[in-house]
């Protein structure tokens, strides 16, 4: 019996492997023409513009400690924008996660999708991967924004290492939240619920010392503090225990593994009506 079944299974797995690339391409095609892609670019652009306005309005006051040689130019930029950066990243993760599955919910593409020979778990993982890539683009653009502001305000030579860390570390820390939001957005058809959760969630972690540091929003604060120079320098937020860079990465990795597996398993076992 098992020998009989093995041949078709081999065929199925071959076609499933082929369709993984197909899934990635299909998701890209579905995303074009939605608000997701503009949002990916507009988000960091908006935060950067905010920084520009800020320097225009209060530049003199903000630059005082830098001109006095008390802090680095990098600290001037990150201290002002770090907190908004975190919020934009977190809320952006909730929006991207919602929009990337909303198409499927609204036009009931799930049932069409799962009528085809594709693995549901793979579909889910591909969606998470796409959302993560989009968030990475946003994050990278954020660092470009920081660099632009530093050049414009003549804040000294560009600190390449810090800029790179500002691009990847908050992103890594935001991935568990993205995984959580994707789980909610996929599980619940009414997108009001996951998005409302995404909006309430910041209160669960931003500078809340009673929340464990590995929790998604809190982890992002940890990462940003690390980017801004660590506890010694005193970053945005008031968390009490600071995570090191490697702690952030491992906490994130573990959370992603758990949350994405959970989401994939949920989608695989769901009845599509």
């Amino acid at each position, binding site marked *: 019996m098992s020998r009989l079944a093995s041949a078709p299974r081999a065929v199925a797995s071959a076609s499933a492997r082929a369709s993984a690339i197909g899934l990635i391409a299909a998701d890209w095609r579905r995303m074009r023409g939605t608000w997701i892609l503009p*949002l990916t670019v507009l988000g960091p652009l908006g935060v950067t513009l905010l920084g520009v306005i800020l320097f225009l*309005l209060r530049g003199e006051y903000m630059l005082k400690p830098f001109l006095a040689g008390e802090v680095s130019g990098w600290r001037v930029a990150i201290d002002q924008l770090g907190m908004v950066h975190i919020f934009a990243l977190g809320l952006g993760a909730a929006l991207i996660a919602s929009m990337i599955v909303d198409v499927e919910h609204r036009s009931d593409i799930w049932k069409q999708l799962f009528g085809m020979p594709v693995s549901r778990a793979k579909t889910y993982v591909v969606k998470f991967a796409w959302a993560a890539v989009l968030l990475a683009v946003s994050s990278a653009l954020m660092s470009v924004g920081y660099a632009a502001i530093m050049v414009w305000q003549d804040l000294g030579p560009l600190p390449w290492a810090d800029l790179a860390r500002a691009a990847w570390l908050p992103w890594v820390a935001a991935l568990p939240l993205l995984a959580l939001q994707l789980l909610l957005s996929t599980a619940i058809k009414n997108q009001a619920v996951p998005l409302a959760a995404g909006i309430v969630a910041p209160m669960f972690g931003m500078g809340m010392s009673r929340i464990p540091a590995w929790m998604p929003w809190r982890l992002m604060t940890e990462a940003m503090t690390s980017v801004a120079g660590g506890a010694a320098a005193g970053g945005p937020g008031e968390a009490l225990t600071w995570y090191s860079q490697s702690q952030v990465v491992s906490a994130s990795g573990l959370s992603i593994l758990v949350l994405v597996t959970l989401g994939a398993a949920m989608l695989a076992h769901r009845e599509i009506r």
Partner: protein
Amino acid sequence: MLRMLKVELMKMQWWLVGLLAIGGPALAVLLGVNPGAETGAEAWKLAYGYATVRYSWLFYPLLAGVFAALVCRPEHVGGGWKQLLALPVSRTTVYGAKLVTLAGILAVTNLAFGAVFVAAGMVSGLGAGVPWSVIGMSMLAGWVAVLPLAAVQLWVSSRWKSFGAALALNVCLTLPAIFAAQSHEFGPWYPWAQPLLAMSPFASDQTGSTALNVAPMTLWVVIVGGFVVSLIGGLVTFARADVRQ
């Protein structure tokens, strides 16, 4: 109009609205109140100031967007616009009923915030001397200040089917509020900063002014003016729109 209001109340998904309007502020307070050593009126005011910042900057305006989308959701989901607007009700009434419902939910949200704050303050031992007038004024001012952006969100939500798109706009406009509020020149003019400014218990000390914690100029031009403009804009758009879905 009264009948339409009743209909709006019948259609809402109350479990969700209730959870957000009461549970949300409760959470904001419970996580935001740090019991200090101080007690008495000044301690109350300080604790209140601390609790309002994140609530009035992010939570309340963003929630206004969520509620605006929720108020329009029943129609967007089941193709309800074409049925509703083919009935003998004017589009103005339909839109008006939705706006009043939205304003009502936002009032409840703010009241819940105040109530939970006072309760939490008492439990965590802030003692006697609850600054009722400060808190009451802050509730009222915050509610009035949130109405213009609620009107903008309703305008957008009545047009866009996607929850995400309407909220994305809301997030983009709300995040800058914290910076706008810090600026004396720009702050009074930015509608999304108004709840934050109006709800702070120290606002009247700074602006040194009027009934609703905000400078009269801001009140009339930005809040009332902004509300009227977005109300008319939303109404005209809604009345003229072709219902094709």
